[in-house]
């Protein structure tokens, strides 16, 4: 069944307050257990041998010497995994080509990127396992490689997949291509729109791959028993999805794999898909020992999915009075070694902040010799929006309009027809723009060499499959068993708050936990900003079910009709003066009697949550540019965002600040650096430069609350939106400070200095 619960405005006791998170004490005392913190007696250590080549045919793999090494208990290669058909399969709500999944997990015919797994060993100690890897002989035939997306699209570029023909073009192409898929979105007549424009701005942009940069490397522990059952402990954004993927590639029955999610040390989309999990189960099966596999930081960078690098072309037309007449974009996204970049979502997000008659967006999904891309917070949107919001800013300048004013003139609102499908419902975009314009930051004075930039972002937010159970314990305390991972935003706290609000009891009486895959039905990933929306809806349904059962129980105990029993502030009491009167019963009293009056009381929900409400954000940033070194310093930052309703405002602020900080890193210094040989040169935190504390200013937040009509508390979601705008906002601020329009991310000191020098030279 697909479910929505409508928003009801009501006086709130808990929702909107800031109680302490249930995982807090364990996390500050070191007691919280993350992926690498789990151990089983008799466990082996699993390690992966990775391709040193960006593109190579694997002629042979000789594991005999490794197997002969004392302490080595098992080795797996491509031979140990079944071939999967080349077709899209919907598994765990994700649409995946398992031919690709098996090949990404373990190379088959070819190694397609530096870091591509080619073999894995399980041994008694890490040093033995490492030694064993060195003894595996792989005979490679090195092939020409391609990483840059524009080069990969050229005819004659090295082909990753000899039988890949571009989808979405008619007639079907005759030649194989690295372009896996072409998408086109649009409405109206773009040519006519540009003809009607007084001013046209057209620019080309490029971005490098960046990594999610979670601090906890992927880690898992697998135990396969001879009876065909497997247990898996892993750091994941979706233990049900991981179970589904492992079952498919290992050809096991889903119910025979039990996945227990550990605390997750950051994911941001990077822990949506399996890497070592199926290898660990396979090694455990082969060795008949538990197998623990923890990635090194270098493996995380070389082997797991960063974002696409991209080439983006944007063209915008507007009339002198500031109405956009036409908008066009081409998005060419790296997919990595296998198809499936987020170019479709990026295409849909590119212009969806504006009310446009004539739009055309073309997206290309391009395979290149880099790790398969993974989701990263609003997948693809920041890349498209960097281009679009830069051009919006330039257009505002050309028209002599304040950038927020120009956006307001064209802002999307309820009823705006999108170019990807539906009309927008109730949204808060205009409210975020107005709040930003009213913020003191927007009118504050700037210092020398400083500039201010603005940019905005849109994300759909989603719902999807969600389950939970709510058990009333014998003393009236409650256990809320959730199936959707708390990826650290604090969703466990938010769920408990909604349950306590519904039941009218203290927050502390509800203990939220995330159950393993054997305790609940399927849940989708925590991704797309769905957790507080969808899991919240499920928690509310379970709570209302519990209240209903409590009322029924009291009606029986007090021998009054059900209608006579109302539920208020944690107790059952007479509905009103006219109804049958009885002595009120508290939740605790009912719970104590439950066993003797028909059994324990519980509620549960198994839903496919629908009705997610789009989120919008407006960012303001001040930068200071060192004209002699090209260094860009972020001096002030403000995030304004419509989250629908902030269940726990402090944790919502945390999402906004964290997303902005990641966006700042993306803008300034983060990038994958490849050598001519296609080998990643900066697979570590020293040269892959995520922001440190001293790089960042305070990040002010303004929470806008335009309730989502399709959630009982009006929740939209908040995790994705804040990473979308920073890149564009910072580019716009640098332009404001220097007059230079930077179109190549990152805006690193050498890039900025080069641009400053070129401009100076041009002036003469």
């Amino acid at each position, binding site marked *: 069944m697909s479910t929505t619960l409508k928003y009801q405005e009501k006086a709130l006791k808990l929702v909107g307050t800031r109680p302490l998170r249930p995982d807090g004490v364990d996390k500050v005392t070191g007691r919280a257990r993350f992926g690498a913190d789990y151990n089983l007696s008799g466990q082996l250590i699993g390690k992966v041998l990775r391709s040193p080549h960006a593109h190579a045919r694997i002629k042979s793999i000789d594991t005999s010497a490794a197997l002969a090494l004392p302490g080595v208990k098992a080795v797996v290669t491509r031979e140990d995994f079944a071939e999967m058909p080349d077709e899209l399969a919907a598994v765990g*709500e994700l649409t995946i080509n398992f031919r690709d999944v098996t090949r990404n997990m373990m190379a088959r015919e070819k190694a397609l990127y530096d870091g591509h797994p080619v073999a894995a060993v399980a041994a008694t100690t890490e040093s033995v396992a490492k030694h064993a890897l060195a003894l595996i002989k792989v005979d490679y035939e090195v092939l020409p490689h391609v990483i840059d997306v524009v080069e990969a699209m050229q005819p004659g570029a090295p082909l990753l997949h000899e039988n890949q023909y571009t989808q979405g073009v008619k007639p079907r192409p005759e030649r194989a291509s690295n372009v896996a898929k072409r998408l086109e979105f649009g409405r109206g007549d773009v040519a006519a729109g540009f003809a009607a424009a007084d001013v046209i701005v057209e620019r080309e942009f490029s971005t490098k791959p960046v990594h999610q940069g979670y601090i906890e490397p992927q880690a898992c522990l697998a135990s396969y028993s001879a009876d065909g059952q497997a247990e898996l402990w892993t750091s994941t954004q979706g233990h049900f999805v991981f179970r589904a993927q492992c079952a498919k590639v290992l050809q096991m029955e889903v119910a025979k794999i039990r996945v227990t999610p550990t605390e997750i040390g950051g994911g941001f989309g990077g822990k949506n898909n399996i890497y070592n999990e199926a290898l660990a189960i396979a090694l455990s099966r082969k060795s008949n020992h538990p197998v623990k596999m923890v990635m090194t930081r270098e493996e995380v960078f070389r082997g797991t999915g960063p974002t696409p690098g991209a080439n983006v072309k944007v063209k915008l037309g507007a009339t002198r009075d500031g109405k956009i007449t036409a908008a066009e974009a081409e998005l060419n996204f790296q997919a990595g070694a296998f198809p499936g970049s987020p170019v479709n979502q990026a295409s849909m997000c590119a212009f969806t902040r504006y009310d446009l008659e004539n739009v055309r967006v073309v997206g290309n999904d391009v395979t290149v010799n880099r790790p398969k891309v993974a989701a990263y917070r609003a997948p693809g949107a920041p890349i498209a929006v960097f281009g679009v919001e830069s051009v919006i800013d330039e257009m505002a300048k050309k028209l002599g309009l304040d950038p927020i004013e120009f956006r307001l003139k064209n802002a999307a609102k309820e009823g705006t027809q999108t170019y990807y499908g*539906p009309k927008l419902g109730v949204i808060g975009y205009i409210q975020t723009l107005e709040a930003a314009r009213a913020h003191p930051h927007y009118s504050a004075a700037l210092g020398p060499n400083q500039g201010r930039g603005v940019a905005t972002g849109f994300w759909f937010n989603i719902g999807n499959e969600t389950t939970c159970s709510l058990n009333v314990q014998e003393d009236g305390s409650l256990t809320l068993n959730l199936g959707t991972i708390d990826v650290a935003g604090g969703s466990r706290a938010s769920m408990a708050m909604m349950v306590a609000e519904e039941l009218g009891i203290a927050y502390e009486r509800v203990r939220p936990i995330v159950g393993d895959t054997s305790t609940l039905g399927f849940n989708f990933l925590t*991704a797309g900003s769905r957790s507080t929306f969808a899991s919240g809806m499920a928690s509310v349904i379970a709570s209302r079910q519990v209240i209903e059962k409590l009322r029924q129980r009291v009606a029986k105990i007090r021998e009054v009709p059900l209608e006579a029993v109302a539920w208020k502030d944690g107790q059952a009491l007479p509905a009103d003066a006219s109804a049958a009167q009885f002595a009120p019963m508290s939740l605790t009293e009912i719970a104590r009697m439950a066993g003797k009056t028909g059994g324990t009381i519980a509620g549960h929900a198994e839903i496919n949550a*629908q009705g997610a409400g789009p989120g919008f954000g407006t960012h303001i940033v001040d930068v200071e540019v060192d004209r002699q070194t090209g260094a860009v310093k972020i001096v002030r930052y403000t995030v304004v965002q419509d989250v629908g309703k902030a269940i726990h405002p402090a944790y919502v602020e945390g999402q906004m600040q964290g997303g902005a900080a990641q966006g700042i890193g993306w803008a300034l210094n983060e990038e994958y650096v490849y050598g001519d040989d296609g080998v990643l040169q900066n697979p570590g935190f020293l040269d892959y430069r995520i922001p440190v504390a001293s790089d960042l200013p305070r990040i002010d937040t303004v929470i806008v609350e335009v309730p989502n009509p399709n959630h009982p508390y009006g929740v939209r979601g908040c995790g994705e939106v804040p990473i979308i705008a920073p890149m564009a906002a910072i580019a716009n601020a640098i332009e404001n400070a220097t007059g230079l329009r930077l179109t190549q991310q990152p805006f690193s000191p050498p890039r900025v200095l080069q641009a400053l020098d070129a401009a100076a030279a041009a002036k003469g």
Partner: protein
Amino acid sequence: MARITLASSLAPYTDGELELRLEVANVRQLFQALGERFPELQAHLETGIAVAIDNEIYQDALLQPIARDSEVILIEKIAGG
């Protein structure tokens, strides 16, 4: 009959046909009818498509009712990070 609109990204699989009217009572029937009419669209329907019924987006909701006067739009499915 419900008014069905396909996102322009699906044009290559329907020989460019993006608007039609169908007598369908729910999403499952809609996908079935479309699949018969546009064989190339079949794979996408089952894997990569969400449906907006009167501007509310539904994902993986085969039994979602479609009213006779509903406006239905097929769009690309949405995931996230």
